[in-house]
């Protein structure tokens, strides 16, 4: 073994692995864009005008960038949640429900805490508390499923989906009842506005983009750091790749599974909390439809790597944001974007299809999530 040779090939190894990691997602996006263009053509539109409109709407001005970043923020949090779970060998489909609880509880702290205490709070106490409340709510909601999986073997796929429905019901109940905005002019299910001291400030005057976006990027870095630099991250990854060997290595597999779901839920809860404290300043039923499921596509597209998740989040955010401009220019419905996103997901998940089309050889391991139903 020659050390010198290792050094020079290390750099090329890194480049090689970046190439390998991104070629399939890139081709998946490309293929989806092409098919999307064909669909546009088939309903009588002009694909080039449509995509130009999309790009303009997403990146054409400072405001566009700001809006795209706003869309990207919850995607990053939720995508990180799913990605972290994937690395731990778990499939967290419950980001939707964890996010809802995160939003509800951060809103609660946001509008109700001063009332309970009897005095106002400074922003540097109130805001963190609100975000923390949301994060913990999401975290606990997910940890329940993690514990069920660890100690009873109940598969997290069905359990998180069930928890989504339960969360949906419970948040409807809360926001439509006890937590409803009591303003007589209000008819829809939403909470009152949260206090000023619980709101995240915008970064620039005149643009909606707020510091929550920066927090999202920080969290992406933290997740990367956790997984790759810490001992706990080593344990999480080992459990994800081979729970039997992990057990022999002395890792408490049950604890790690529960912990992984807890962290995942915290991130998803933050997605909801940041939307409330940074953007809407309240929680309204139905605002978050689909973030949790988009997060799955984002995590897969980003190959469960924090940087990939950030990039994939921007992609999806750009699609969502640019869609309105695209519709304005071409009269094409925004639903088309959902179709393209679904196609991207299909090609990313079935990377074998992309490989087959473009004749690329397979490499590397796949984390196996389907290990039967346990129990």
């Amino acid at each position, binding site marked *: *073994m020659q050390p010198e040779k*290792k050094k020079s090939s290390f750099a090329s*190894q890194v480049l090689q692995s970046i190439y390998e990691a991104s070629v399939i997602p890139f081709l998946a996006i490309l293929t989806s864009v092409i098919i999307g263009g064909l669909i546009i053509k088939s309903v009588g539109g002009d694909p080039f005008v449509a995509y130009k409109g999309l790009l303009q709407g997403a990146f054409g001005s400072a405001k566009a960038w700001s809006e795209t970043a706003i869309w990207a923020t919850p995607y990053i949090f939720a995508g990180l949640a799913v990605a972290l779970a994937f690395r731990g060998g778990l499939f967290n489909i419950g980001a939707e429900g964890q996010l809802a609880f995160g939003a509800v509880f951060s809103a609660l702290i946001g509008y109700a805490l001063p009332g309970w205490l009897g005095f106002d709070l400074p922003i540097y106490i109130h805001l963190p508390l609100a975000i923390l409340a949301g994060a913990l709510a999401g975290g606990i909601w997910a940890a329940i499923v993690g514990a069920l999986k660890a100690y009873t073997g109940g598969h997290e796929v069905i359990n998180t989906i069930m928890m989504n429905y339960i969360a949906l019901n419970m948040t409807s109940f809360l926001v439509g009842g006890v937590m409803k905005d009591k303003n007589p002019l209000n008819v829809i299910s939403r909470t009152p506005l949260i206090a000023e001291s619980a709101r995240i400030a915008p970064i620039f005057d005149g643009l909606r983009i707020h510091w929550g976006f920066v927090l999202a990027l920080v969290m992406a870095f933290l997740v990367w750091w956790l997984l790759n*630099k*810490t*001992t*706990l*991250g*080593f344990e999480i990854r*080992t459990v994800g*790749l*081979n729970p*039997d*060997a*992990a*057990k*022999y*290595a*002395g890792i*408490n597999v049950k604890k790690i599974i529960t912990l992984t779901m807890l962290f995942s839920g915290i991130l998803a809860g933050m997605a909801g909390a940041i939307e409330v404290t940074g953007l809407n300043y309240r929680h309204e039923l139905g605002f978050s439809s689909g973030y949790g499921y988009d997060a799955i596509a984002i995590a897969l597209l980003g190959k469960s790597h924090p940087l990939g998740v950030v990039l994939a989040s921007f992609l999806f955010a750009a699609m969502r944001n640019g869609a309105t401009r695209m519709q304005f220019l071409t009269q094409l419905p925004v639903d088309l974007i959902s179709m393209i996103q679904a196609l991207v997901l299909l090609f990313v998940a079935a990377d074998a299809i992309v490989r087959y089309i473009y004749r690329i050889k397979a490499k*590397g*391991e796949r984390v196996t999530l389907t290990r039967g139903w346990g129990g």
Partner: protein
Amino acid sequence: MTELVLEAKGITKQFPGVLASDNVCFDLRQGEIHALLGENGAGKSTLMNVLYGLHKADKGEIMVNGQLAAIQSPKDSIALGIGMVHQHFMLIPVFTVAENVMLGDETVKNGALDQKTVAARINEISHQYGLDVDPNALVGSLPVGIQQRVEIVKTLYRNANIVILDEPTAVLTPQEAEDLFRIMRDLTARGVSIIFITHKLKEVLAVADRITVMRAGKVINTVLPAETNEAQLANMMVGRQVILTVDKKDHPAKDPVLEVGDFCVHDSRGLEVVHRVSFTVHGGEVLGIAGVQGNGQTELSEALTGLRLASGGRVQMAGKDVTNQPPRVITATGLAHIPEDRQRHGLVMSYSIGDNMALCDYYRAPFSKNGMMQPKALDENARQLIQAFDVRTPSSFVNAGKLSGGNQQKVIVARELSRDVKLVIANQPTRGLDVGSIEYIHSEIIKMRDRGVGVLLISAELDEIMALSDRIAVMYRGNIVATVDAKKVSREQLGLWMAGAQTA
């Protein structure tokens, strides 16, 4: 000149990275037992899989009874009268014997499966060949030796006159192996021709009419048993002189490092598979646990290493009670474990060699400080161990999954034996390895023994047990039925105990 029932000419099969069959020629005469001998990885199974239709050869042709045969799938080979009994049984545990036998060739009456007719035919075959299987038994509940007979019935049910047996004695006691040989001679007397695949020299000389030796995908030679001996065959198998015995110095045993008393373990279905087992391993000795697979050894070693809970009894390691302690505690007390399933319990395939080398100690210094991993320390450790234990790899960054079986085992051995250990539990440590790796592992085990470490060796290979052990215990159906001095016991006696024929 007896006619050839099967002739394979120029069979070549390439897998990614390895030429498994290199222009192989092989023939089978009517009514003979033709042994195919070779070490693990020599290409024997690949050749048979091609003959049976599970793989398609890149080049070459097969003639059955003088006619060119196009074998695309097992359906074709079965139609030509070829039957195969695989090394790992192709039986479905939750089906009955009858269902397993008729699968793929079902008898149907009015749209429904005709179990009665099938059972009757199975009984007929059973009696004719002395195989004695119950058509209505659930295969999963049958002992391994009987399961093998079901596999043989499967081939006879389809009127096979060429039967391939792939390493059939791996799961049998010496007595059961004798029984199998009797059945084989019976079959050939009735006109069946047999291909017998094995890596065991003694068996080949005992039962074969002709012996073909393979090595690294090529046929080396075909000889008659009368014209050769074990040493010659081993030489042909490996390509060099093979030391068939291990040099062991005698020295007095030290204090006990492992004391197991009244140990009971249940398996995942809740059945008790280890019944009140008691034994002691002293420092500086090798205690070999002999026994055919499936008699509780797996669960025993899992329970001793903390991977499974014991349901009763106690375990003391170096004087400390470690009964049902978590793996980390047991490891810290001084245990080294070479697991039976290296890919499942021993390594994380997609981790680098470096990460795998630190798998048991990653959580403490120097590999971990203040909750952060120390990559430099991991790398340094890996390099030292790769050197010391002669692991063949270009760098420590290679994924463990890319190594050969022998090198993977070396990574595990390097990790485990480089610690300060008092006891080594080695479970089937040389299964599936090439002769070079086997020799290496054996020498490492003896090295540990000579250093004063106690070794608990669990193996289904009787030769290995007899070569390495100072004392031998035999396990049968979850009980230790005998514990003896290795120098004072014969192979036959061990075989009897392994078959449950006697208790000491």
